[in-house]
């Protein structure tokens, strides 16, 4: 596979309730990513977006997001009803063809207008699970309980993950939840859905993220510090969560192996840890050494713009390499219930 590089990225802040419309807050994010890559808008050969109309409650809402791209004269574009990480994957595949050299990918979402605990069950089996109203917190609580019962994680370790993420997020101007929190104080809080407390859940966020990809020649020509995608893979597990062992993530494990995670030491990993216990599952699935720093940005527990939170892991991991001196980083995105579907990419500097 041809090496593809990340040559630019931009993220909006993560807002609890954005005052602007999705195209309005996408507008500067896309422009900034293009400026960051030091290219002209017309150099982009392919555009791919990730969003979910269920979040905003309007069919074809994704079409309006294109207004922030600049689609005249007509452009070549595509959309995935998924996190922008999967738009990035589609563009990575598209760039392999070699006839174009630059792609714009982005993810965006406004979670604030609707009720996520009612929207999410619609992705489940419509006969047995959707009518039960199995929301993400309930599903995550089942997974956390399975992990605790198996002795793979403790509630204290989960609180430690939260405290660490919120402390790290104090250095991230785009984060929504940050601060110095004492883990004993966190553990003293009541359960929301046992064994999860409110802080074990991600915030509800609106926001967007855009990334510019380029082929090797193009990246060398325009970018001082390209971030190379050395491997990328995504795998999906069976839809019915009752048929899975929730204490492991076999899809992450396979995707990580195919992406080449274990081929060399990893400096830092930006993982889609939306619920605190998931860090333990993902660390084990990827075989990360204990010294690997996870989510220096504060991760999804600090900023969770749905449909942009996965592609934000790519932006944050690339930022670690381009701006913070890391050499080899993991970007991970997740979709579905209880880590059902997972994407893993290995990013490297020169």
């Amino acid at each position, binding site marked *: 596979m041809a090496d593809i590089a990340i040559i630019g990225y931009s993220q909006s802040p993560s807002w609890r309730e954005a005052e602007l419309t999705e195209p309005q807050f996408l507008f500067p994010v896309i422009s900034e990513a293009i400026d960051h890559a030091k290219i002209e808008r017309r150099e982009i050969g392919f555009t791919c977006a990730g969003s979910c109309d269920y979040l905003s*409650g309007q069919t074809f*809402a994704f079409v*309006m997001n294109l207004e922030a791209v*600049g689609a005249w004269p007509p452009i070549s574009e595509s959309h995935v009803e998924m996190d922008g990480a999967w738009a990035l994957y589609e563009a990575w595949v598209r760039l392999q063809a070699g006839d174009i050299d630059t792609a714009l990918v982005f993810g965006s979402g406004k979670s*604030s207008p*609707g009720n996520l605990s009612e929207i999410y069950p619609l992705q489940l089996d*419509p006969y047995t699970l959707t009518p039960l109203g199995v929301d993400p917190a309930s599903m995550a609580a089942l997974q956390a309980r399975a992990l605790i019962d198996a002795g793979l994680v403790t509630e204290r370790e989960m609180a430690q993950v939260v405290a660490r993420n919120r402390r790290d997020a104090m250095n991230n101007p785009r984060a929504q939840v940050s601060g110095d929190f004492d883990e004993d104080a966190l553990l003293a809080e009541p359960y929301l859905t046992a064994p999860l407390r409110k802080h074990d859940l991600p915030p509800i966020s609106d926001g967007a993220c855009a990334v510019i990809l380029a082929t090797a020649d193009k990246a060398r020509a325009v970018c001082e510090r390209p971030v190379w995608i050395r491997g990328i893979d995504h795998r999906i597990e069976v839809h019915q969560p009752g048929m899975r062992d929730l204490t492991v993530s076999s899809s992450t494990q396979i995707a990580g192996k195919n992406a080449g995670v274990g081929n060399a030491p990893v400096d830092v990993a930006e993982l889609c840890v939306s619920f605190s216990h998931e860090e333990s599952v993902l660390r084990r699935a990827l075989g990360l050494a204990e010294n690997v720093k996870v989510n220096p940005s504060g991760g999804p527990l600090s900023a969770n713009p749905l449909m942009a939170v996965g592609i934000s892991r790519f932006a944050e991991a690339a930022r670690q390499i381009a701006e913070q001196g890391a050499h080899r980083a993991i970007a991970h995105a997740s979709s579905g219930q209880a880590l059902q579907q997972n994407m893993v990419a290995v990013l490297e500097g020169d």
Partner: protein
Amino acid sequence: MSASLPDETIDPNAPVANMDYFMALEFKETICPVVQRYTDGLLAGKIIGHRCSQCGLVYVPPRGYCPIDVLETTEEDEVELADRGIVTNYTVVTPVQYYGQEATEPFAKVSVLLDEPGGMLSLQDVLEVPVEQVRIGMRLEAVWVPESDRTVEEIGNRSWGSADGCILGWRATGEPDVPPDQFNDRVF
């Protein structure tokens, strides 16, 4: 969201062949500042648009940007628009009596290209004109809801083209039709 309760007349031992499942999702949208200015204008009897400083196209309701030139637009780009215009495009809807459908007779939804400085309002209702007489090029004027009865509750951030609650619909002015070659690049 709620699942329907089991019907007690159904034999609990019979195989399940059908399952009713009624659900609804509620969304509560905060009107963005640009659309807020537009709705405030409608309540005062004015149609406000944004004119792109580069290409001159007028957007109504304003969006806060010109998607053609990828330029942000602001209050400085606001223009007050005419409440008269030309039908450039229309659809006759023949209502199917699905659950919740209130209309029974065919009706037209038209795109109205407003007189200078321009702007296009789509999906507008035509009043006092039989459906079969709606045609491209006919001149219309807005019929405003009386000021005290105006409401903007139906207008959302993405309801482009909507003046619901403030403009009741559009009626023919009786002026001669405008030939299509004068607006054939402004159909939608």
